[in-house]
């Protein structure tokens, strides 16, 4: 079986699956059961400064988006950082780390953007024996109104400054958790690196309103007739997170900096995808909140199965495998021509491909007597929409036209060589291909 042990920014854990800083990691009771279930590490629910803890709303704090059969696809929350006293959290962190020395124990922190505040809390955390800290510059609601969380994460200079204060004060590895509520994710990542961060983690939650109550005309979750934007997470945010992770992995300035991939990891497959795009491990919140701690067992078995099948001996071998294949649009091969193919044996004749292509694409599917659906090659632009709307996996596939054959849509012979937009005659800025 593949070896899932990882070392992330100098922190060892038996597998790359950590629980993200959130309710699942808010107390020893949870974390101990999570470790028993098999989680490789946790990022403890974000701690604030000493003194009276924050208070949460006393009404609903989550909103949701569902798919078929009420499967939870997206969750949003208006929860703040931990609302338990600092001493209690620190005592529990210490106990749990003592009892579970092989698991990663990272402590998430968020204190006011003042040097003194950060320098005061770090020794207290260090004293617990924790393996590292994560700076929460991501929380998009509540804390940001107080000048913390994403209010810091949206200003690269602040990120760099706070990171530097921490690096100067503590021996512990510093992970900077990034907010996605920003235009260019590379900027805060570069700032973290400049401040000396050992790693970044992303994404935190996305500003969102999940729904509006059509009786009370208020956003959900609704507190006494009012609602506030919350932070969005769960399967729905995975594509955004993957893209951001890949951008940091591809960026020359941050290349090589460890990335903890977060956002919508629900199955082993999601985790593997984050790893290939450059993550060194993953953090999970919503999947655990939806299905309980046991989901990690499927993630562990799935990832090691897949690694065995592929012949990967370690997580490090997987990490970044897909990064070289992430490129800019202008570098995509325009001589790569495919056509949709419908497997008539698998087809259940629902006609969704027809409706999609006929109404909204290129009128490239013919509906023949007996509800037989066939692709008209002379019209098919290979957009993939039919593949995406077909309810039967692998019923519609994209097949490449062999170089030398004629594309009936354009009447042109498919060229064997690679040619992209930068050399295309339609591009006014094209450089001559010859």
């Amino acid at each position, binding site marked *: 079986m593949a070896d899932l042990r990882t070392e992330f920014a100098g922190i060892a854990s038996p597998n790359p699956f950590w629980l993200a800083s959130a309710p699942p990691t808010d107390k020893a009771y949870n974390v101990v059961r999570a470790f028993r279930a098999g989680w490789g590490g946790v990022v403890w629910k974000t701690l604030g400064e000493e003194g009276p803890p924050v208070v949460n709303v006393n009404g609903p704090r989550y909103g949701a988006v569902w798919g*078929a*059969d*009420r499967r939870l696809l997206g969750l949003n929350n208006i929860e703040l950082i931990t609302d338990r006293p600092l001493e209690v959290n620190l005592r529990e962190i210490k106990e749990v780390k003592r009892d579970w020395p092989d698991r990663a124990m990272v402590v998430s922190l968020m204190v006011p953007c003042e040097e003194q505040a950060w320098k005061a809390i770090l020794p207290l955390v260090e004293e617990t024996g924790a393996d590292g800290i994560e700076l929460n510059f991501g929380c998009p609601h509540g804390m940001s109104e107080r000048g913390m969380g994403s209010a810091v994460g949206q200003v690269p200079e602040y990120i760099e400054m706070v990171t530097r204060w921490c690096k100067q004060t503590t021996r512990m590895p510093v992970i900077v958790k990034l907010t996605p509520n920003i235009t260019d994710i590379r900027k805060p990542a570069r700032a973290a690196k400049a401040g000396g961060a050992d790693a970044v983690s992303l994404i935190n939650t996305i500003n969102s309103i999940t729904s509006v109550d059509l009786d009370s005309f208020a956003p959900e979750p609704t507190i006494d007739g009012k609602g506030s934007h919350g932070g969005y997470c769960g399967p729905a945010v995975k594509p955004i997170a993957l893209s951001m992770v890949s951008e940091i992995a591809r960026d020359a300035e941050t290349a090589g900096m460890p990335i903890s991939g977060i956002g919508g990891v629900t199955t082993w497959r999601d985790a593997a995808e984050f790893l290939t795009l450059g993550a060194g491990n993953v953090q999970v919140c919503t999947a655990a909140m939806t299905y309980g701690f046991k989901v990690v067992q499927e993630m562990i078995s799935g990832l090691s199965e897949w690694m065995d099948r592929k012949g990967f001996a370690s997580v490090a071998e997987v990490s970044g495998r897909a990064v070289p294949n992430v490129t800019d649009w202008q570098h995509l091969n325009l001589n790569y021509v495919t056509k949709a193919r419908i497997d008539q044996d698998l087809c*259940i*004749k*629902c*006609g*969704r491909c*027809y*409706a999609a292509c006929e109404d909204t694409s290129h009128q490239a599917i013919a*509906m023949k007597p007996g*509800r037989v659906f066939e692709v008209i090659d002379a019209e098919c632009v290979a957009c993939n929409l039919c593949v995406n709307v077909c*309810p*039967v996996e692998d019923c519609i596939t994209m097949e490449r036209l062999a170089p030398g054959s004629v594309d009936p849509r354009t009447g042109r012979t498919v060229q064997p060589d690679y040619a992209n937009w930068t050399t295309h005659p339609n591009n006014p800025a094209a450089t001559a291909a010859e």
Partner: protein
Amino acid sequence: MTNSSWTPGVVPGRLPAEAYALNFADLHPPLDPHEAAVAADRCYFCHDAPCITACPTSIDIPLFIRQISTGTPEAAARTIFEQNILGGMCARVCPTETLCEEACVREAAEGKPVEIGRLQRYATDTLMKAGVHPFTRGPATGKRVAVVGAGPAGLSCAHRLAMLGHDVTIVEAKEKPGGLNEYGIASYKTVEGFAQAEVAWLMQIGGIELRNGVALGRDVTLDELADSYDAVFLGIGLPGAYDIAGVAGNGIGSAVEFIRTLRQSTDLSGLPIGRNVVVIGGGMTAIDAAVQSRLLGAENVAVVYRRGRERMAASPYEQELAASKGVRLVFNAQPVAAHHGADGALEAVEFAYVADTPEGLRETGETIRLPADQVHVAIGQWLEPLGDALADVELDGTKLAVFEGGKVAPFGNVWAGGDCAAGGEDLTVTAVAEGRDAAMSIHAALSAA
């Protein structure tokens, strides 16, 4: 309880009192909102969906299921009723396994169709329970139409005509409206007096006068109706049951008569039923008579059909239902004689085994005797009781011949639909479709005039 399933002869009260309600409860209990949401989520919203084509009334099934899944069952009900005003009954009685659900692409994909019938019931029940009638009448046209028969065909026709602004008079021979919905459909498919409740709900459209106890042929002639109304619609069903020459006498009756009595009974424990019951026939009526005989406490019930299983009109689903209720299915045997005892009571029926050959059915020479105290004959219905009331009307085989839009010949203003008219299967939903389409044809004719 003095009798049991073992008591000889044809006697009432074979079961403990509480067993009847249990036995005759809803065959497919209604979906609750959660079940409906889960079932609705399975619909793929197919393009030009095959289920719509398979529904004789062409209900827009993907649309109504989507309306259920988005929390608007009332809108779903409206979508259903626009095409099929008896969508509530059809949801209960349609053999969906041979109609919409057979065509469902998820039947092809997983062998498990979307539960269209039960979803339809969920939607229609929601609206009907709220007492809402979703349609209003168009402006009055001043035209008057007579509808003969208050079965599914007649009711569907009358409702559509009333909606279009015509004044409708229904003449119905029986005491109650509903046709076979009231007198024929198996009890466990339409519980709690649904047939009458549905008619009352349908009549809320207004503009329909219902005259019960008036029979075409006895109280009024077709010529009189055709003369005094702008148009006439015949939805008289097939009021007579065929019998079998040589198999007659005590204990032998028609299955539809048995079911009619059962459906009208207010105390099923008072209904006499044989210990050994034999049903002759191979359709839905045969299955219903057999299953309900078992549910009344008969010990042995057999359905005897003269051809093989594959030719049976009752669907595999119905056959399975019968088998699950302990009914024995006997194939390739036709009745040759009934044997009565010295006291005149029926004792057995004798059947000859037959081979289904290209030249027709051939007796093999072998016979069997099935013990029987009671026989229900279910070999089909016909127009016979009408006598010469329809003597002038052109026939197609044994049914009324219908031409474009459901017109009958040689009249200029008479239409027909449902079981009495040639073409289409003898199903509630087909009767509804034909009644509706005839109404549209009548409307077109009256609007042109």
